[in-house]
């Protein structure tokens, strides 16, 4: 049940965890590392987490989605050093009805942004370094 991962996220593997012949619709969301932040160019970044709480929140968020809708949900969030364009977070929600798949997927990404104790340290082209946080509404 490790939702936090150091290695790159393979979307195909994630999809395979939720897809089944009974669940014909799969909605997914991928958040990738952007190359800019407030006008400054990002070279690379590092995610750090309060691991035990982040895992607990992942488990709670997935359980909430699976109890609210008739869906199977998988969630992965990377920690450690990431490159521009890497997938930082991936969510897949499979259901017999696409409406539920979309609602569950959307719910999970919003709660991930709102609740996961994860922080991002960005390194910019000018060599400066900054902790980034608090953009759940973005």
């Amino acid at each position, binding site marked *: 049940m490790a939702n936090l991962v150091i290695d790159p996220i393979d979307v195909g593997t994630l999809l395979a965890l939720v897809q089944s012949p009974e669940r014909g619709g799969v909605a997914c969301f991928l958040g990738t590392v952007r190359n800019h932040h407030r006008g400054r160019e990002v070279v690379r970044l590092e995610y750090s*987490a*309060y691991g035990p*709480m982040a895992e607990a929140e992942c488990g709670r968020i997935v359980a909430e989605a699976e109890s609210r809708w008739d869906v199977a949900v998988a969630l992965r969030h990377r920690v450690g050093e990431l490159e521009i364009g890497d997938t930082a977070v991936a969510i897949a929600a499979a259901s017999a009805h696409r409406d539920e798949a979309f609602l569950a997927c959307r719910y999970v990404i919003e709660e991930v942004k709102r*609740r996961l104790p994860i922080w991002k340290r960005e390194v910019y082209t000018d060599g400066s370094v900054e902790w980034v*946080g608090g953009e759940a509404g973005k």
Partner: protein
Amino acid sequence: MPSTAISTLTVRVLLFASYAEMLGLDAIELTFDSTATVDDAIARLRALPGGDRLPPKPLCAVNLSQVQLDALLASGDELAVLPPLAGG
């Protein structure tokens, strides 16, 4: 009048990311003589060197769940002080 036995209270505090840098530490134990709330622990942290840069009402979690600042602490609790979240 009944008397109330008052025992000391020890909690472990974890600091992360920018907050850990502000205070120059990522974990500390705090001991209180009587009951204490999360707010009381934050006040104690803000009195430490570099603590004045800590916001007065940061996001907090006790034992892996977010809590309000008026939540009571129990001995052995793990209190985490969380900078603005940036996951996703």
